[in-house]
């Protein structure tokens, strides 16, 4: 079940109930809603009329339920018609541009120029009042909303990479529209629909109030309010019932549509777990002390474990991760997607989403445990002593601010007393330093005016602006093409040499690791499986997974050997070694108990109970 579907049931149920009541009205055995009994007008609750009688002595409850039929029918019909035609119009207009777009958008502008009441007035006067006319008027009134929403989304979707990609693959317009654009549009459309229905019900009551709506004596909530308003002094409750009905219905509709939207949005955040004091200390009651023997590490991570609350229960995408990186050193963290490398990095930076939190371990930077620092202090370090560069530079830069401003902002956040002008000129310097030509002009540009490579340079400039001791680069070149990749790697290496900062480079590409890293940490399914210097690990891999990875790299003309099987999912991690299912060297003992991290020499660790044996086997085979 998708997250968020549970929240769907309550409002859906409510709406269904109301609709059901309305549909079943003829079968409920209610008194005739138009039967007058003027002698009993404005009577309070009485047998047979639990809500009393209206100004003509008609039963209020019956009129309420029958009124639901007309009010809801009109609202849903007009919203649906508007939705259908509006979406089509918006899709066509936004996709095909040219004359179609002009007509679509401008005709909606014409509709919007009409005051709704005037439009209703004119149409009703021309065609005579009644539900049919009302539906027509309301449909026209809500058309522009749908057209605009769809049109805007289509416009923005057109420029997205994935749409370009699908087009390049030769997909037809229709296919693209329905399979790529429409699902993205669905959310805002649904919201628009809920607003339209809610608004339609309210507008209908307003039009009926003016006498332009459903023809009496047929009941409708709007008419009931009109009648009740006149007798407000004598029978105030009479006004209450239709208002209550209206409010409840619209409320239910809104909740339903919000819930629908959330259920369809894959980025729904789950509930934030409340942080208790105990959780800050337990588990891992005593945080591990920093390794006093090792030379000063800029960052030392020990036994880091992160837990995320999900609807299916808590998962640990990172478990017992330890590594260290020293000044002037490049540490690569390599692994497939889902291995937990990014989560490790973000937890060090303190940028975990609210649902995730570290439950064990420590991360020492300059003698302080980042995981236990209060937020204001962490903030001082972020962007200052430690900085991060992210994977997708386009979405990582704010589109509405100039590039220079965004860099200057980073500078001013960490240095008091720096003026905007000073920060700006420093930003220009930084841009020059990261290899952007004509930096004065470029600084005034917006992110969308730059290429991917340039944007990433900007990100790097922003990150090194405050001379960090530690720079974490999370797959910074994955989104770039190969030539630019090389340039960025060179740049990073250069900066590291110049400033002596520690660089953590996260990637899934072994080639990159070989090129720039001094040490490497191999992660699999949330755990560190091997760690050591790059020449050692690449030259003589100890863990079966590392071996498999290296073997998978195409070498000359040989076909790449893939690794059979799939990475286990976080909520279904096996008890024992997580790689066992795919490991050619697995034994029953491997799956029985979780393997510990074992030392394998100077600065080398490996998580495999058979690493020595396998090494011996391999040596024999070679020999």
């Amino acid at each position, binding site marked *: 079940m998708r997250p968020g579907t549970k929240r769907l049931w309550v409002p859906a149920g409510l709406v269904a109930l109301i609709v059901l009541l309305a549909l079943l009205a003829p079968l409920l055995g209610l008194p005739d809603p138009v039967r007058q009994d003027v002698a009993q007008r404005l009577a309070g609750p009485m047998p047979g009329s639990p809500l009393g009688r209206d100004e003509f002595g008609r039963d209020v409850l019956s009129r309420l339920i029958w009124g639901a039929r007309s009010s809801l029918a009109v609202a849903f019909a007009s919203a649906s018609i508007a939705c259908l035609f509006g979406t089509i119009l918006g899709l066509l207009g936004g996709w095909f541009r040219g004359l179609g777009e002009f007509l679509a958008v*401008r005709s909606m502008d014409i509709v919007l120029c009409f005051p709704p009441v005037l439009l209703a007035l004119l149409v009703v006067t021309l065609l005579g009042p009644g539900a049919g006319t009302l539906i027509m008027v309301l449909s026209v009134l809500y058309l522009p909303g749908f057209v605009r929403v769809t049109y805007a989304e289509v416009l923005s979707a057109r420029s997205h990479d994935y749409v370009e990609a699908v087009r390049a693959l030769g997909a037809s317009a229709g296919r693209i529209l329905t399979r790529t654009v429409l699902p993205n549009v669905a959310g805002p459309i649904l919201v628009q629909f809920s607003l339209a229905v809610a608004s339609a019900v309210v507008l209908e009551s307003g039009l009926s109030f003016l006498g332009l709506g459903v023809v009496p004596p047929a009941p409708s909530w709007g008419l009931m309010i009109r009648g009740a308003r006149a007798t407000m002094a004598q029978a105030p409750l009479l006004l209450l019932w239709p208002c209550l009905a209206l409010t409840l219905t619209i409320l239910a509709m809104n909740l339903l549509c919000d819930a629908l939207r959330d259920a369809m949005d894959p980025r729904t955040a789950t509930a934030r777990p409340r942080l208790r004091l105990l959780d800050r200390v337990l588990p891992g009651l005593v945080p591990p002390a920093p390794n006093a023997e090792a030379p000063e590490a800029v960052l030392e991570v020990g036994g880091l474990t992160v837990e995320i609350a999900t609807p299916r229960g808590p998962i640990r995408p990172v478990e017992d991760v330890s590594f260290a990186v020293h000044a002037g050193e490049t540490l690569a963290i390599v692994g497939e997607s889902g291995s937990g490398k990014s989560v490790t990095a973000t937890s060090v930076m303190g940028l975990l989403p609210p649902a995730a939190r570290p439950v064990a371990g420590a991360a020492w930077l300059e003698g302080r445990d980042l995981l236990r620092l209060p937020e204001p202090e962490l903030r001082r370090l972020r962007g200052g002593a430690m900085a991060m560069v992210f994977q997708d530079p386009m979405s990582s830069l704010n589109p509405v601010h100039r590039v220079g401003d965004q860099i200057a902002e980073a500078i001013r956040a*960490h240095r008091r007393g720096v003026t905007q002008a000073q920060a700006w000129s420093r930003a220009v310097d930084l841009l020059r330093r990261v290899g952007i030509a004509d930096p004065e002009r470029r600084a005034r540009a917006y992110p969308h005016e730059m290429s991917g490579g340039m944007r990433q340079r900007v990100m790097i400039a922003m990150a090194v602006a405050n001379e960090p001791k530690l720079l974490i680069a999370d797959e910074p070149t994955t989104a770039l093409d190969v030539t630019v990749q090389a340039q960025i790697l060179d740049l990073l290496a250069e900066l590291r040499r110049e400033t002596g900062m520690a660089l953590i480079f996260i990637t899934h590409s072994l080639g990159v690791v070989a090129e720039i890293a001094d040490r490497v940490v191999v992660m699999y399914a949330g755990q560190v499986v091997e760690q050591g210097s790059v020449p050692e690990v690449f030259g003589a891999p100890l863990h079966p997974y590392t071996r498999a990875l290296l073997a998978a790299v195409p070498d000359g003309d040989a076909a790449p050997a893939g690794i059979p099987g799939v990475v286990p999912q976080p909520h279904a991690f096996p008890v024992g070694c997580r790689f066992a299912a795919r490991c050619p060297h697995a034994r029953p003992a491997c799956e029985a108990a979780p393997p510990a991290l074992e030392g394998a020499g100077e600065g080398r660790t490996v998580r495999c109970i058979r690493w020595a044996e396998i090494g011996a086997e391999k040596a024999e085979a070679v020999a």
Partner: protein
Amino acid sequence: MGWAARRIGVSLLLVWVVASIVFLAIHLVPGDPAELLLSSGGVAPDPGAVAELRDRLGLNLPLAQQYVSFLSGVVRGDLGTSLVDEYPVLDEILLRLPRTLELIAAGALIAVLVGIPAGTLAALRRGSAFDRIASGLAALLLAVPVFVVGTLLVLVFAQILRWMPAGGYVPLAEDPWRHLTLLALPALAIGKGLVAVVFRMTRASVLDALSRDFVRTARAKGLSPSRVLMRHVVRNALIPVLTVLALHMGTLLGGTVLVEYVFNWPGLSTPLLRAVEARDYPMVVGIVLTISALFVLLNLVMDLVYAALDPRIRHA
């Protein structure tokens, strides 16, 4: 500048189309203004008097001729005179329009002052008690019709509590305090719908912005939460909110009828409604022309503001 000129040209075209449609429509609708005028109070007028009035009002001229004279009048800045009391239409509009605009502006102000902070807070504390209560209130405000709210406001504040006068109008220059007092309740009534819309839109927009990567970057830069919020989250979130607000304000231009009626606020909606009821053609067309021209102008201004706020649009 070619872009701006084109937009203006299109806008003028739009206005002309709207005015023409209304001109045609109002003439097609059954009902004779001269007859109606002389039938006030439910009496039967003398057919001779009716014929005479029709003649005097130029209603017997062919429709095409009336249309041409109307268009040429508009170009000259003359919107004709009311069929009911011969008052120049333009004067009536100039008299009443500022009052409607004032009402809408006041309502929008309330909506912005209340809706944006509340929506932002609700988004930041998503799922909390505040969020739930505020969202519930917004839904409630959307649901209850404005004329009911208006009536209740008058009932409570004017009749029961005696805090405010029961509606009416006094020019700002004459008595600013009373003017503002009289503005308060109708502005609240107008604002109630706008607040709900702005709140929902802000909440959704801020939620969306919060999940964007550049917010993560801003946090990674070590910016203070308030700075992240203002410069990165809200700044980006405001764009759709303002668009929606402007859209609603535009449609309010002709739609303040119910509020003006309930509070006796002498804006533009009421003469429009009366004019349609009385088939006062020049007044109807004149007012609709003004409203649509204003709306188009508003759109133009919003486009320019939008471009200023979102540089991607400028260069597209």
